[in-house]
């Protein structure tokens, strides 16, 4: 490879601008323009790629809509009532509040597609509950809250899977349903760690809730519990597309907040609209940058180059997945997740196809992996957020989250090497593979 080729210069520019703090989307646009300039191509190509790309990425409209519905859901505080319901289910086991935390995240995962939304919605109240009267160390409460939030984008719906669907041209519906078993595997792994920790440190048990209170508690949690039913029922019942389901989720969250809990009005709605609109612009720009840069990568035939390079090593699918996992785990320590999906995964996809790896399986493995990156230091987004919510020092949270990371990597190995864990449900729903 020529170290002074237009492509190499573009890479230096993107890396340089990114490291020096220019937003990543803009860095990629700048690098792409430089490439066109040096390669003597039409300078309008970047604009053309961004505009045509955004205009044809209909599936991506699910992203702003899921962001909007998460904002509304968190406003309505419908998830607060889930805590009582989860307590009823698992509170009486050793380390009860830790289990409650995980189970609540499972349910929330069925409502929202973002780990950050999960933390924003339930993080504070979960941590407060666990640390009341010093029952759990605050760093442990923060660690399990961050770890369980990771389940959010694995169990459907899922914002990263929507983005992956765009770059891999796979069906959002099958990707979503493929995440169900991995999501539960991740949750079991976390509950296993929590059980172990609870016995080791003698964490408390919650008072069992008498059966006669069960209906009341369930009733209060019903609006929240209905959300996953509406979303998944809508998508897999063939009533709505995944993108439309995102809009239905937002409408439902709004109606529940206004008419059932009656805890927000126009002012709050306005705030939620502005927040989600700005988040939309932020991720939209990242996607726009990736659209511009992916054009350059395609013109340079980088994915084919990687494929040829790897063919030289005569990798088996198993070893290929092993190395992809290692690379993604390392990148997850330093890079933001959406960027990895948009920029790094497209490079591997042709090789995955050539090796006969199913792209729904590959996507689920990659996203599971990238989600683990949300709680691996030094750049673990969720660690930063729980640290600021709980006030616990980052290094203590990192220490306490390590067993969770370890358990999740074991779950990752399982879903990597037993493809049926991902593909069984999609195949049941008619996926041909």
């Amino acid at each position, binding site marked *: 490879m020529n170290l002074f080729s237009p492509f190499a210069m573009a890479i230096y*520019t993107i890396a340089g*601008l990114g*490291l*020096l*703090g*220019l*937003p*990543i*989307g803009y*860095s990629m646009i*700048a690098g792409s*323009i*430089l490439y066109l*300039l040096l390669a003597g191509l*039409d*300078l*309008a190509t*970047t*604009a053309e790629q*961004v*505009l045509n790309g*955004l*205009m044809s*990425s*209909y599936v*991506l*409209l699910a992203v*702003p*809509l899921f962001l*909007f519905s998460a904002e509304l859901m968190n406003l309505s505080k419908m998830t607060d009532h889930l805590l009582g319901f989860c307590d009823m289910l698992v509170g009486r086991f050793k380390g009860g509040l830790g289990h409650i935390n995980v189970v609540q995240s499972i349910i929330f995962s069925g409502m929202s597609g*973002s780990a*950050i939304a999960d933390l924003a919605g339930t993080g504070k109240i979960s941590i407060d509950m666990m640390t009341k009267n010093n029952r759990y160390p605050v760093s442990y409460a923060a660690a399990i809250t961050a770890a369980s939030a990771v389940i959010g*984008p694995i169990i459907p719906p899922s*914002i990263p899977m929507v983005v992956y669907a765009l770059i891999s041209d796979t069906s959002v519906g099958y990707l979503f349903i493929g995440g169900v078993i991995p999501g539960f595997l991740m949750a079991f792994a976390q509950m296993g760690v929590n059980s172990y920790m609870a016995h080791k440190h003698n964490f408390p048990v919650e008072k069992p809730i008498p059966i006669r209170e069960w209906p009341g508690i369930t009733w209060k949690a019903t609006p929240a519990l209905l959300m996953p039913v509406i979303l998944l029922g809508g998508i897999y019942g063939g009533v709505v597309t995944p993108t*439309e389901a*995102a*809009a239905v989720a937002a*409408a439902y969250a709004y109606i529940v907040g206004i008419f059932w809990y009656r805890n927000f009005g126009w002012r709050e709605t306005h705030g939620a*609209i*502005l927040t*989600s*609109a*700005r*988040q*939309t*612009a*932020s*991720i*939209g*720009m990242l996607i726009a940058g990736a659209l511009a840069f992916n054009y350059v990568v395609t013109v340079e035939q980088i994915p084919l180059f990687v494929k040829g390079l790897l063919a030289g090593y005569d990798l088996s699918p198993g070893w290929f997945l092993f190395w992809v996992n290692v690379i993604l785990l390392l990148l997850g320590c*330093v*890079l*933001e*997740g*959406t960027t990895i999906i948009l920029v790094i995964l497209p490079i591997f996809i042709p090789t995955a196809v050539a090796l006969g790896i199913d792209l729904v399986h590959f996507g689920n493995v990659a996203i599971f992996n990238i*989600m683990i990156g949300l709680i691996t230091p*030094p*750049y673990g*987004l969720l660690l*930063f957020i729980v640290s600021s919510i709980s006030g616990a020092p980052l290094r203590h949270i990192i220490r306490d989250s390590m067993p969770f990371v370890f358990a999740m990597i074991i779950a990752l190995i399982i879903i990597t090497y037993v493809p049926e864990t991902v593909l069984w449900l999609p195949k049941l729903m008619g996926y041909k593979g």
Partner: protein
Amino acid sequence: MTLPSRTQLVEVLRWLRRRADDVCGFLLVAMFMCFMIQIVARYVFNYPLGWTDEVSVIFWTWGTLFGAAFCLREREEVRFDIFYSSMSEKTRARFAVVTGIVFIVLLVIAMPAVYKYVTFLKVEKTAYLGIRLDYVYSIYVVFSIAAIVRYSVLVYDGLKGRAPDIQVGSGSVI
């Protein structure tokens, strides 16, 4: 006629910024409404619509580019912030000058070609509603100009030793 004072100018800019936020919010709500209309038309009136698909992607494209141009605050951008955030404000201000100048220069160089491309599209129309494509795509020109202006301000601030306000991990949505 007297020139407006600095505070008046700041007032005007703030007002403009709030209106820009309103436009950005409107684009999101409009996109959401397209979907609701589409679903209701299909199930309640048994009358599938085609224009909603087209209009909603236009709202999404505009929402992204208009939002990035006028609504996003510096602290809301997705950055490679693990390295950048550990620098002192003085260093970050210098970085902002360098990155800002590179970005502005490249946008300016591409500008004539972009303008030509967009205006050339006046002969094309969107598939369903027949909206002229140069109108739809003009948002990219607006975005480019706004980005040039905005980064000029950031370069100016950087020269004065002021770095953009950042927040680690903000802007990520997954």
